[in-house]
């Protein structure tokens, strides 16, 4: 019994036990190699990260927004949900895309072209945030002080949303973690 002093508990495994443990070990190894194997499919979490500061990232990202923001016929910046709309430059331009997460918005609203490849930087200017692309349900952690770079190629067109899925405090029903949404558009 589990409460008694065991007598001679060092007994050999019997046949069923050996079979079960062997199967479990094999299954464990299969599950393990799925992850390194996954790196062949090119659908992996990015490893590319740089140290930054909130101030530095803000400067770089604001410069990016200024350079690529879309202007209407009157020369006024086009806005969506109060955010600048930006034509994202693909990698052939040599420029990167910068996304700011801050309490409580993602900006700018990015416009991508289907089939082109982009390098997207993400960092936070204040709290920890979560980048959750909907409806794809693709999620990344966005931290202050870390510039996380994701290289991706959009393969469908439409309007997508970025929901913050890391709690980042609140300041009333109109302002807070639960109102933090960004927009991404992919065009033909």
């Amino acid at each position: 019994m589990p409460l008694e002093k065991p007598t001679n508990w060092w007994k050999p495994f019997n046949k069923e036990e050996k079979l079960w443990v062997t199967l479990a070990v094999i299954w464990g190894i299969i599950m393990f190699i799925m992850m390194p194997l996954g790196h062949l499919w090119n659908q992996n979490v990015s490893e590319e990260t740089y140290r930054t500061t909130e101030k530095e990232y803000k400067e770089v990202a604001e410069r990016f927004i200024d350079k690529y923001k879309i202007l209407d016929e009157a020369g006024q910046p086009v806005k969506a949900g109060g955010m600048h709309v930006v034509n994202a430059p693909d990698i052939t331009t040599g420029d990167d895309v910068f996304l700011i997460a801050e309490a409580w918005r993602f900006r700018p609203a990015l416009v991508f072209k289907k089939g082109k490849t982009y390098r997207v930087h993400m960092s936070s200017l204040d709290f920890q945030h979560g980048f959750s692309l909907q409806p794809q349900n693709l999620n990344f952690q966005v931290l202050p002080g870390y510039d996380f770079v994701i290289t991706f190629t959009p393969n469908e067109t439409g309007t997508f949303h970025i929901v913050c899925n890391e709690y980042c405090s609140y300041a009333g029903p109109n302002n807070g973690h639960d109102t933090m949404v960004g927009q991404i558009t992919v065009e033909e």
Partner: protein
Amino acid sequence: MDLSEISKQFRTCETTGLKVHLPAQRLIWINAVAAVVFLLIGGLLAILIALTRWPDVHLLPQDLFYRFVTAHGTNMLVFWIVFFEMAGLIFGASIVLGARFPGIGFAWFNTIMMLTGAILVNIMIFMGKADVMFTAYPPLKAHWLFYLGIVLFAVGALFYCFHFLYALVNAKREGWYQGSLPLFVFGLVVAAIIAIFTLVSGAIAFVPTLFWAMGDDVPFFRELIPSIDAEFFRVAFWGFGHSAQQINLAAMVSIWYLLAYLTTNAKPVNQKMCRLAFVLYLLGINMGSVHHNLVDPGLSSTYRIFNTSYFFYAAVIGSMIHAFSIPAAIETAQRKNGLTKGLFEWLIKAPWGHPGFSGLALSFVIFGFGGGVTGVILSVEQLNMLSHNNLRVPGHFHMTVVGGTTLAFMALTYYVIPLVLQRKLVLESLAKYQTYLFGFGVSIFATGMHFAGVMGAPRRHWDISFQNAVFQVPFDPAMNTMLALVGIGATIAFTGLLIFLAIAVLSVFFGKKIPSKMETYMPAHSS
């Protein structure tokens, strides 16, 4: 105190014949009662939170929702569970071994320190000074007394773990006990070692954070620690936050073996195998903490894959072994009792009407098949991108911590109250329905959470309709059904919880006292 005086502090349990060290019994009482009080607080918050996540009800306002999620997480994942485990450690080191629990004064000091910490944390949260969630990720900052409370609680629990190990050594040295430890206590030793790792990680995360937060009031600390690195905290925190649940795992599996014995007289068929599985937990399980960091910036894939797989799933193999040996023990015992017809008579004619057995069975299934399987899926590096921080994660851990650990602890409580705390169970007839209500309720709401998460529902989110946001997010309408399941399942589970609390509280305070003989009891092997 000399041995002759100590030997007068024992009573003999009339049902089991176990020798109970009375000062240890009082310690178990205070820790168990504290655990249940925090379970009550956490449970009341749970139903309010679940009914807020159900969009058609949307009960709480924004500020209370986040405050209550913080309080719910902390009270349930830390205070309820750890207090109960401390009671378990004292039980294992004294009553099970037939030994005294040495250093009673030190133990009381630690219990009081833990209580002070837990109360302080609750006060700060409910005052609205710590709306930072259980995870408390910097740069979110709570009042420093919140962090102080957590540190006090963790230090008390850490001392308890060392105290437990000392008590085991002492039991042998004074001759109360000889030879190998019983399996149940062996499992608790594994839990205590995991707990030491866990609590040290917690200190690494929270002590600098405490100083950083104190910087608001004391300039010295502002200069000492001007900021906390976000990723440093995340790695250290999860060494605490997730490993704390691995303490539960080891303790819960030990309790499974105990419940199997208490309900069907099952004895482990091969103790070598069971112990090997516990050792695999010890070696591998804490690496799993990294599956909270799989989509974080700054970590390499090698680090992620190696750790999140518990080193080739060593710890999962441990769980697979228990998944084999616990039913095997029950089957062997049942067949010995003559239930030999066909493949499954032993299972069909098991004592399903007994809360100890149904609690064990439900806990086993919900933990293993619901929680364990979802957990292993979530912790795959590539798949984690589809689940990080959405409701799939709480769906997983409510199956493990609530459907698994909490249910096992509840089932054990029905034995602890009469056998250790010497009170007859009040409303005993309700107990046999309680485990089913609770188990099914948890399964329903955790399944709802899981599928809402699959559809993209973020966790810890007050308003997924995004009524006040600049963009509306068109989620799959089926998500509403899933979140309704969360509300309905939580209501059922909450009913089960209330029945448990009623039985536990009424029995402990108003139950008929079970008399017990005081008998002088000396160490059997003293030199």
